[in-house]
């Protein structure tokens, strides 16, 4: 009998200890997690709730119905994604090559290493004006090309948003190069040398050794560039076509010009969800690439 009661009390005490410990952990987490919840969680929640609330405060699906029935918004969503994905891909290819180049030593490397960072200190709107001055009809490039008999295609306010993509690309290359270069320089040089002595040329070393080992850095760079381009307003507003407009521009128009905040909340939610899906797709692609590698390995 006594043994059983003792066992009971012991278990009860253990449970109490467990609770005390959990409480302590929660308290310790509060400054960090609480901050995140308060400054990120609440606004996000407010946005989602707002997208289901009409102007007079009633619950409604109207805003989502409007978003998915108006071609302006559907086209806007796809154009937003296009203006985020295209510069990410272009900047990624260039940045990987640049980062790999900067691993090597060559004359003038230091000057080059400083020059490529210039876009870091140029704000997006300035970059947009730079592209406009260069590429617009009657801009610098066309004035250079004209006497040579070359007729440049329309690149500013064109339907593909080429000017906007170029500006975002230009702006994001140094960010990506910095991050990817950092990841690459963390790779043990002897590993690269070993690959060379085993018969791999520079390109093979880049593709089979440097890229897989720098993958965490590459993913971080992709994420940052994608998200910043997705929400960019100044660049597509100045350089993009009149139709379609990306959601960021629609949000500004609807919010500040018309005071239609519920639809702004809905677009914000839609853009965030779309971003999450694109990034999930990215990670599953990467997982499949590295996973197929592992599977091949297992077979052989």
């Amino acid at each position, binding site marked *: 009998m006594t043994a059983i009661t003792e066992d009971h009390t012991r278990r009860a005490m253990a449970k109490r200890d467990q609770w005390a410990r959990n409480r302590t952990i929660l308290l310790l987490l509060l400054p960090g997690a609480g901050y995140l919840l308060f400054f990120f969680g609440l606004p996000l929640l407010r946005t989602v709730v707002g997208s289901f609330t009409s102007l007079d405060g009633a619950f409604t699906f109207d805003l989502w119905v409007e978003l998915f029935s108006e071609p302006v918004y559907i086209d806007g969503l796809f154009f937003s994604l296009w203006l985020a994905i295209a510069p990410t891909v272009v900047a990624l290819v260039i940045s990987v090559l640049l980062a790999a180049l900067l691993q090597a030593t060559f004359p003038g490397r230091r000057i080059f290493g400083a020059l490529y960072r210039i876009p870091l200190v140029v704000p997006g709107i300035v970059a947009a004006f730079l592209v406009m001055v260069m590429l617009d009809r009657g801009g610098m490039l066309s004035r250079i090309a004209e006497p040579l008999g070359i007729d440049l295609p329309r690149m500013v306010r064109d339907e593909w948003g080429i000017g906007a993509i170029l500006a975002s690309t230009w702006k994001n290359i140094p960010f990506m190069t910095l991050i990817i270069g950092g990841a690459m320089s963390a790779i043990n040089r*002897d*590993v690269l*040398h070993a690959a060379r*002595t*085993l*018969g791999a*040329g520079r390109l093979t070393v880049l593709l089979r050794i440097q890229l897989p*080992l720098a993958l965490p850095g590459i993913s971080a760079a992709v994420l940052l560039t994608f998200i910043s381009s997705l929400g960019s307003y100044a660049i597509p507003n100045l350089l993009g076509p009149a139709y379609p407009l990306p959601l960021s521009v629609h949000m500004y128009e609807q919010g500040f010009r018309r005071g239609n905040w519920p639809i702004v909340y809905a677009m914000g939610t839609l853009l965030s969800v779309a971003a999450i899906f694109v990034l999930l797709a990215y990670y599953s692609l990467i997982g499949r690439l590295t996973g197929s590698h592992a599977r091949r*390995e297992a077979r052989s």
Partner: protein
Amino acid sequence: MAGLSIRGLTKAFDQVRALDGVDLEVPDGQLVTLLGPSGCGKTTLLRSVAGITDPTEGGIWLGDRRIDGVPPERRNFGMVFQSYALFPHMSVFKNLAFGLEMRRLPRSEIRKRVAQALHLVDMEAMAGRLPRQLSGGQQQRVALARAIVIEPDVLLFDEPLSNLDAKLRDSLRDQLRALQRRLGVTSIYVTHDQVEAMALADEIVIMFSGEIVERGDPVSLYRRPIFRFTAEFLGRTNVIEARLDGDRCRLPWGDERSVENPGIDDPAGVAIRPEDIAISTANGSDPHGEIAERMFLGAGTNYVVDAGGVRVRVNVAGTQNDLIDIGTPVRLTPPKSLHLLRRGRHGSAEALA
């Protein structure tokens, strides 16, 4: 297979010359160790042979084929690094297969040769592991297998055992030597460990400050070095300034000995290895000096003797001797004939030890 010749190899960085006109022959199938203190240029020399570093002047030949200027991937040299340098994202199997894939061998052939190489280093069971799942010694065996699986013309070793603990180092060293002998691959082995150098080498090359000081087979280089630097870097030695008189010399504590090589230029003193001196308590006869320090090492005992104003190191091997206490008067018996060392440009290696 062919031997390797290095002629007039120089590597100048902004200010320093890491290599200064080095000439070196590595005969076919032999293992040459480059031995020297850090910064002596041994690693730069090895990396130049690998093609990882471009020499400023001079040439490298494999047989009669000139290879400097050929990129590393087309030299067919295997290299083993101090940091192992395995591909961290690839399994052991994939690490070994990499070099064979570069050579576009068929899959079945790759599988066969990887299995053979893993068998050679006794790592077959680990084929599916990632490098981080292996111990340091296992990683280095995989790295060795990766270097030999491509059937290289030359094997290059850059201090491969320096990151391992002492016991493992000894056993891996012996395996490595046996493997190199069996495969008969021309090899260069860089180390700063003189025991490793002597155990492995057909020929030892002593380097200092971008130049070759001296070279020779381990036995003659240890027993009859030309320079003081060599004598002190390859094991320890007493360099004793003795008064020379024809082919005789008088040691500071009064004994006389004959000199093997009288009349050399610029003598630094006679060399007496600590293990070549016999020591006995004076027991009433005239003492040569007295014990100043004693270190019991298990396999032997090292003494420092104050004799005639110089400190003489004496190592007594064996475990059955009576230990001599500090302060005891002793007599020293060096070998009958002694070997004179040249001072050379390199000076003493004692400060570098």
